């Protein structure tokens, strides 16, 4: 059952999404409804191809839902235009990816302050952006690596830089897609601890896509997805009732 709350950070209502067309059309999300409250740490778990990454992309405005309602941080995606969605991603949402997505022709600091390039205004101008970049690098414990290229870093360090970049504009919502999927156990644990710290100290809402038990075990709530549907507590698909009624 979806949780009802007056001002959730994320609110999805009967979201459908399919790829392809005609006979090759493959449904990925089938009537997903979901609410995430401010300050929550929510783990989205499910098998590969279950639709959890697609769900995360739709929440982040990186993909469109075919139907249904999506409202994130008070912005209704149905009416928001590209510029408004871009501003939302830039100011209020942070992304952390499995493969880090750092630009190798820039050093760590330049990667971290990259979101400032698209900001409407950055406090203190370019110098302010650099100061802020150093501060978030310090937060993830990589101050001394500010001028190293990503190719010179270990996997864990790269992910820390990526987290620093996600934190650059002090987001309210952090969307993480398999953040430990490319890390060894110890490094993965460090990253999980960092997320926990960010959530506890900054009150950032975390929505983490993972298939690792050690990650989901740290979440306040675990949402399981299977075949594009959210499973209820006993492992039954919420959408089953809808399918019956359809």
């Amino acid at each position, binding site marked *: 059952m979806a949780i009802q709350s007056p001002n959730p950070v994320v609110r999805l209502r009967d979201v459908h999404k399919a790829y392809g067309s005609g006979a090759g059309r493959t449904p990925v999300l089938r009537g997903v409804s979901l609410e995430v409250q401010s300050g929550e740490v929510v783990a989205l778990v499910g098998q590969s191809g279950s639709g959890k990454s697609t769900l995360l*992309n739709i929440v982040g405005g*990186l*993909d469109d839902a075919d139907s249904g309602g999506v409202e994130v941080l008070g912005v209704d995606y149905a009416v928001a235009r590209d510029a408004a969605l871009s501003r939302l991603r830039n100011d209020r949402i942070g992304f952390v990816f499995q493969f880090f997505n750092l630009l190798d*022709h820039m050093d760590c600091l330049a990667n971290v302050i990259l979101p400032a*390039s698209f900001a409407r205004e950055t406090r203190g101008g370019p110098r302010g952006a650099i100061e802020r970049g150093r501060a978030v690098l310090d937060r993830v414990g990589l101050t001394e690596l500010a001028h190293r290229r990503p190719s010179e870093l270990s996997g864990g360090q790269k992910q820390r830089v990526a987290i620093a970049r996600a934190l650059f504009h002090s987001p309210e919502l952090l969307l993480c897609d398999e953040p430990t999927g490319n890390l060894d156990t110890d490094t993965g644990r460090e990253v999980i601890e960092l997320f926990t710290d960010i959530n506890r100290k900054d009150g950032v809402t975390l929505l983490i896509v993972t298939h690792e038990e050690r990650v989901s075990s740290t979440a306040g709530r675990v949402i399981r997805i299977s075949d594009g549907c959210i499973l209820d507590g006993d492992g039954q698909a919420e959408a089953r009732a809808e399918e019956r009624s359809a």
Partner: protein
Amino acid sequence: MMSPGRLARLVGHNAIRNRRHFALSAFGIVVGIAAFIFFLALSMGVRGWVLELFPIDQVEVIAPRTSLIGSLGMESQADLNDAVAAKIREHDGVRAVVPRMSIAFPALGVWWYQDTKLKFDVVGDGINPTYLADEPQGALFRDYEAEEKGKPAVQCGPAPKLFCPDLNYCDTRNNTCHHRVPMLVSRKLVEIYNTQFAKSRGLPVIGAMEEFIVQRGGLSKMRLHLDLGATMIEATTSTLRGPPRRIEGVLLGISDKAIPIGVTVPIGYVERWNREYLGDEAASTYSSIVVQLDGKDQVGPFASWVEKQLGLRLQDSQGQQFATVIFVVTLFFLLISFCIVTISAINIAHNFFMQVSERRREIGLLRALGASQADIRGVFLGEAALIGLVAGVVGMGAAVATGTAVNLLARQFLPDLPFQPASFFAFEWWILAGGLVFSVLFCLLGGFLPARKAARMAPAQALAQQ
């Protein structure tokens, strides 16, 4: 939309990272823009030079050819006189009217040069000295005979031998001194002397006229004899009213206003000589009337008026003919440059499409970090514009360097002729700026579709690229 400063930083980062792609894309544009600037500057340089020699806002009114004499290449001059000159002077758009009068009787020139006695039948005409007032030789190009009138004559002669002052000669008819008749020749005549005459007779080529005069020992050594009423052509049968007599002239230098083949002297001399040898009618009939108009746009209406109202015509303007030929040749080369730049723009589009494909994941990342579609479009168009800017500057430099090299080679290998300009190129600011603008515009054109494709890419799918 990103601020220009941030966009420039991001574009700069990308350009440094993709140096090879950048160089490959820029190469064609460099060649195209260099060719564009080179040919346009060459065209403008040569055009300016030709129009300096043959100004097109200056026309020459002549009498129409009569059917019988015209077939022999001779022209009737009966209608060109002071009355016609006055009518032309009153016409709208006419700035100056300068009648020319041909020496209408035979005359024989003798010039001692490098121990060689050069003898030639003289063709010449006269013009008003005020027409040359703004030229270096203007101060010396005067009707001295008219100025000497009424003044006591300085005596010279065989016994006791008296000498005339510098630049004067002794008229043996009455043993009096007279200033030598000032004469000017055209560049064309000097060119003919250099290329046709000097070579075959082992005489030195005349380079800069001023240097030549100094080498000869100054103007006092630039004298030549003119035997009025004499000729080397034995078949000449003209009835002259006066006996042959010798005068002396001084060659002051070169002028573009001089008759193309022959010598030009102040018109007062020609009037008196024509009267002396042929009578009053020959002294009041002009061979042509040079008309300076307010602008080249006036040429058409003026030509029409001259033909309809005066029954006269304009001599074909060589300047206009040359300018037309240069325009056509320039157009041809500009078309080639345009083709090169267009092909380069297509090449840029191809390279950018490849870039968009290779940088899908980066585009997706930028979108995730808050780049709007307009920002992505701006980044790719910014890169295209940067290629255009750099290629334009390099192309500009290449064109100027090539032009300079051509000038140097021309100076080294072409003979030092009076026709040769200081530079064959006019690298005007608007040509350089135009080249730069074209370069940037064509690159933006090439980058437009790839930039649009990049901007429209779905971020989630772009990020999914491995």
